[in-house]
Structures are given as C-alpha cells and as structure tokens.
C-alpha cells in the first residue's frame, strides 16, 4: 500500500493504474522503486504484449525483482486436480546414486544430509539381496503430520507432504513418528552460498534450508508446477524412478511411460510396511528379472562408507 502511495506523487499515470490494479503486494513488480528518475533521453525498443514494438526511456527500465509467484496458503493447497504418485522399480537399481547426487544438488543439502537413501536390503537370511532407494513416502495417513503440533508439516490435496521451514519449531516429533526414517534435521546453520541463503523461502522448493528445522524429500513440487519430473527421476541413468499422476493413471521416467494401474498389476507392485496403515504414495516393483546383479552396486556402497568415515 505504502509503495503505491509514494509512487502516486510524480510517476506516469499508466504506471499508477497498473500499480493499483496489481494489488497491494510490497513486491509489486510495477513499482518503479526510485521515483525521482529523470528521463535520460536514451530510448530502448521493446516488444509489447500485443506484439507491437514500443520505445521506453532507459531510465525507467527496472530489473524484474524476484517475485514469489505463490503464497504460502496456495503452496499448502497444492496443484489442482493432481494426485502424484511414484513407482520405484527395484529390478533396475544398481546403487549408482545419481538420484541422490541430483537431489542433494537441487536442494542444496549439506554434506551428510541425504533425502534419498539407498538401502542394501535382504529380507531374510537366505533371500536375495537388493538395492532399495527410499524417498519420502508421502503417505496418505502420514504419521508425521498427525503429530506435528504447529501444522509445519502438512498433507496437500495433490498428495504431497511438505514442510514449512518458517513455521517448524524443531521439536522433532515428526522424525520420531516417521517409520521410514526419511526426515533430516538441520543441526547447524546450513552452509549455503550467499545467493541461495538469501533466496525467498518456499515450501515447494524447500530452499534455503534453515537451522533448527526438519527437512525431507518433497517430490519436487516446483518441478511439477513447471510440468517437469523430479530431479531424482530425470537423473537416474537406469530409469528406476517413475513419477506421475494417479488421476491420469500414468507414470513416466522420462523415457518410458506406463499406465500406472497396469504397471502395478503386471509387476505386482507393493508399498513398504503396509501393515502400519500409513498408505504410502510410493510403490515398489519387486526386484525380479534384474538388469544388474546386486554385487555390481557393492563397489559404490563401500566407497560411500569410506567417504562418510
């Protein structure tokens, strides 16, 4: 409001109208900021929305400030008409870890923090071992959301469970409640580049991380809004991850697209710890007819361990 009032004094009438029309946000993109600008006489040619070429004095050109396109309440509702789902094909996983690297990079996670964890699993003594990547399960009955005292972690209509790091009080009850141990805590001030650290925080990007709060895999809703796949899905060289929409009944890993229900039916998909009743949104395809032997991923695993020590 205040910005609009000051701009009223001596700026162009068109800018004023646009400013009023655009609402009362303090991040008003039409706000000229410094309103004592003197025309420089140097004109710049621009393409208008109608496709005409117009000229504007250079002095009146402002860089477009980075504007948050979504409000917190919009982020809490989710993307209209979607029901996101993930399928992880265990027969394709070789513990390459590209998913993890891409995820860590995209979300600026600190060393030691991983939202994706690739477990070496063996269900019983004589059963076959396999690699099992785990993300957040985005449960339909999320134990973490139930126990959060301040609604800092919440379930959206599109099925994604997110965390609002500006509300989280750091009680870590959600970490105790999550049976999949997917949650990560920022024990210290995250080491971030200046540019990232000062960025506007959004629950959808989960960037920048904040000290004393919980974080976890978020299914990359910011990518979904752009119509793109989560980072782990596009980074995996073996096409382990499939991401999609249950309403459309399709999932894709970028190269192949399947009808979700057929894929789950044909390959006998299942979910982790079904007996707990958390109803995860991540489905697994059993590690049968494998593309790689389990041992081929072991090398990667041992180097990982050495690095962490």
């Amino acid at each position, binding site marked *: 409001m205040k910005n609009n009032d000051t701009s009223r004094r001596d700026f162009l009438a068109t800018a004023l109208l646009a400013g009023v029309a655009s609402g009362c946000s303090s991040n008003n993109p039409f706000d000229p900021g410094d309103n004592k600008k003197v025309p420089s006489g140097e004109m710049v040619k621009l393409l208008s929305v109608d496709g005409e070429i117009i000229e504007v004095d250079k002095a009146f050109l402002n860089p477009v400030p980075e504007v948050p396109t979504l409000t917190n309440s919009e982020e809490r509702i989710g993307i209209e008409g979607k029901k996101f789902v993930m399928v992880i094909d265990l027969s394709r996983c070789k513990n390459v870890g590209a998913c*993890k690297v891409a995820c860590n990079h995209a979300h600026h996670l600190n060393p*030691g923090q*991983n939202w*994706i*964890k*690739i*477990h*070496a*699993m063996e269900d019983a003594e004589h059963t076959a071992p396999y690699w099992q990547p*785990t993300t957040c399960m985005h449960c339909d009955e999320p*134990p973490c959301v*139930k*126990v*959060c*005292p*301040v*609604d*800092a972690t919440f379930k959206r209509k599109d099925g994604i469970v997110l965390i609002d790091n500006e*509300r*989280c*009080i*750091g*009680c*870590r*009850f959600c*970490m*105790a*409640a999550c*049976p*999949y*141990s997917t*949650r*990560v*805590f*920022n*024990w*210290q*001030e995250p080491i971030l580049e200046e540019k990232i650290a000062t960025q506007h925080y959004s629950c959808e990007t989960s960037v920048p991380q904040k*000290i*004393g*709060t*919980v974080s976890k895999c978020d299914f990359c809703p910011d990518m979904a809004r752009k119509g793109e796949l989560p980072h782990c899905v596009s980074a995996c060289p073996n096409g382990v991850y499939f991401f999609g929409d249950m309403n459309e009944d399709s999932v894709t890993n970028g190269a192949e697209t399947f009808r979700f229900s057929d894929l789950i039916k044909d390959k006998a998909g299942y979910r982790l*710890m079904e007996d*707990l009743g958390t109803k995860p949104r991540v489905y697994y395809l059993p590690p049968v007819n494998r593309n790689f032997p389990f041992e081929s991923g072991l090398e990667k695993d041992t180097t*990982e361990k050495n690095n*962490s*020590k």
Partner: protein
Amino acid sequence: METSTTLTNEIITNDLLPQKFGKRGMIWTGILIAFCVVGAFAYYMQLKNGLSVTAMRDYVSWGIYISNFVFFVAISLVGSLITAVFRLANVKWSTPLTRIAEIIAVSAIFFASLIIIVDMGRPERLFNLFVYGRLQSPIMWDVIVITTYFFISLLLLFFPLLPDLKILISSKEVLGKSFSKLYRFLGSFWKGTRLQDKLNKRAVNILCIIIIPVAFCIHTVTSWLFATTYRPGWDSTNFGAYFISGAFLVGAGGVLVAMYVFRKVYALEKYITTLHFDKMGRIVVLLALLYLYFNVNEYLVPAFKMKKSEEAHLTGLFTGEYAPLFWFAILAGMIIPIFILIFKRGRNPLPAFIAGILVVVGAWFKRFLIVTPTLLHPFLPMTDVPESYKHYFPSWQEWAIAMGSLAGALLVITFFARIFPIIPIQETINEQHETGNK
C-alpha cells in the same frame, strides 16, 4: 486446653520457622548455582551454534533432554500422591510430608517445561504453539495438561501455606524484615477467620479431587508421546499405566530422600519420625512391586514373541550395548529398594534414604533407556549417514544442561525451604490439638 498447649505451640512454631543457611547450606547452594551457571553457559552455546553442539543426530533425535523431561514429569506426580490421594483417603500421618511433596512437584514440573524448550530447534518460535497449535498432536495435549497441572500444584502449595503465612508475618523479629514484606504480599489478606478457614479447606479439597485425574493425564499423555509412534519399544498399549506406576515410584522415592535431608539439616526429628520412614518405606515397596509388574509386561511379552522389529531393540537392552544400564536400572530402581525396605530395619531413616536414592537414580536411567535405544533401532537400516549418527553418547553441553536443570529444581526446593516452613506449622499445631499427644 488453650493454656496447656500454648507452650507446645510456641515450640512447634520455633522449630519449624525457616532458618538461615548454615555453612553447609551455603556450600550446597553454591554448588547448585555453579551447576546452573555451567548449564546456562552450555545452553548459550547451543543457542549460538544450534543443536549441533549436542550429540543428537537424525536417528537419535531425542536424547537426555527428553529423558530428563520424562523424569521431571514422573517425579512431579508425587505432589498429587502425597497431598491429594492421602488427604482424600484421610491419612493423617502424611501431614508433615505434604509441603515437601508439593514443592518437589512444582519445581519438577516447572523444569520439565523448561527442558522441553531447551530441546527445541527453534525456541524463539514457541509462540507458534499458540498461533498454529493443532489439537490432534500429543504435544498439544502435553502443553495443556502440564500447564493445568502446574497451576493446580501451585495452588495446592499456596492454599495450605496461608495459615502459616499469618504465623510468619507475626514472627517478624525472628525472620527479618526483608522476608516479611514477601509474606505480607502473599498472605496479608489472610485473617484466619472461620469463614476463610472453611473456604480454604473446601478449596484444597476441590483441588485434591481435580488434581488426581489431571495427574493421571499428564503421565498418560507423556507416555503417549512415545506410544503413538510405530517404533519398537514404544509401540505399546501398556505405556500409560507403565508411566504412571513408574512416576508414583520415583516420586515416593524422591520424598524419602527429601524427608531424610530436611530432617537432618533442620533437625526435624520430632516431626518427621521413624514412623514416617516406616510408612513411606512400605509405600515404596508397594509401588516398586507395581512398577516391576508393569516392567515384566513391557519387556517379557514382546521378548517372548521376539518379533523381528523388536528383536534388535530387546537384545540391545537384555544382552547388548545397553544391558549394563538396563540391569542397573531394574536392580537399583526396583529390586534392591524392595529388598531393603521390605525388612523393618530397612525402613529406618538411613537405609530408607539409601533406597530412595537408588530409586531416583535408577529411575533417571530408566527414562534414558525408554527414550534412546528405540531411536537407534529404526525399521529401515541406517544408510547414507555419517558414522556419528549411528551411536549416541551425550555431549558435555547436554550433560551440563541436564545437570543444570536438575540442580535448578533442587535450588528451587532449597530456596523454598529457606523462605517458607517446609513442614506446615498450623496443621501440625491443629493435629497436636486433635490427638492431644506429645
């Protein structure tokens, strides 16, 4: 009748009026303050550097702060036991112990809420609990019920204090002017009229009735913080009763310890007699047996089945990493005190005091064993985390803060006993009149 007891009244009053700290008192207070200062410094470091100064990590995300919290909540149950349960059951001998129990309850519950704030990653956002608080979270239940319990306990401490305040105001010469101002601020409206007396008695009775369900709630809700999760070791229907019985035990043990200390330091042998130790000792035996019973339920039943998810947790406790601590907590916290206190000679002040200490120390480690080992046994393996995440031993900052909070609770009790009579004067006088003996 009036004349025959006047002398006794004076003696009682003189015996029970708060006394200045002696040399021992000064040293004791000094040590406690030193602990608190070190704890406060450690907390300052934690505020500055984040929770990374603790040894807690993603798997053990609750450590000795939370076990300390559970311990404080547990020991605070004693207030309702000694004051409310005994008063409603018309148990007269507990009168000298009521105030000791109440002040333990008040200071413990106060530090329980403080330690929770210490455990928070973002303590400055505490107000979010009130702005965005959601009732389906067991944490909110805990916030509500702890606040309620704190205020009821405070009132249960204050109302029975009113008649004594009158005595304190009138004995200004003995106590000095500085305290007298405080006494007048707190209790100058108290004239001791019959109407006031009646009102006070009714108020205390009502509080005693209310505090019992609230006390059961606070322990049950605290147990639900754990039991509402899926984790092995916490996923138990036994937890509410288990916590309540454990809380009764540690509270009674705490009173045994406090009785002995106050009796020694303030020379209260006439008021806290061997009879009291005998009776409290019997109660502790009963409560220890009860808690032992719930422990058998808690561990034997899952151990008999040895489900896969429970296996690592239980073997860790029985024979593994936590076995020394586990068996210490069972032996020191329950079995040895039972063996000491079951014999008449064991219920003498000194052995009873030792049993009380064992109960309290065992209980503190028991709380640690309830919180931590479970977190080290998640359903999925610990993968892709640094080595330090797979073990937990508290950092010095955690120890300092935990010990500081314990010292703080003792400090509150110490100062309270310095300012107010730790044994109710008026009630003792009244009871002397009623029974007419001594």
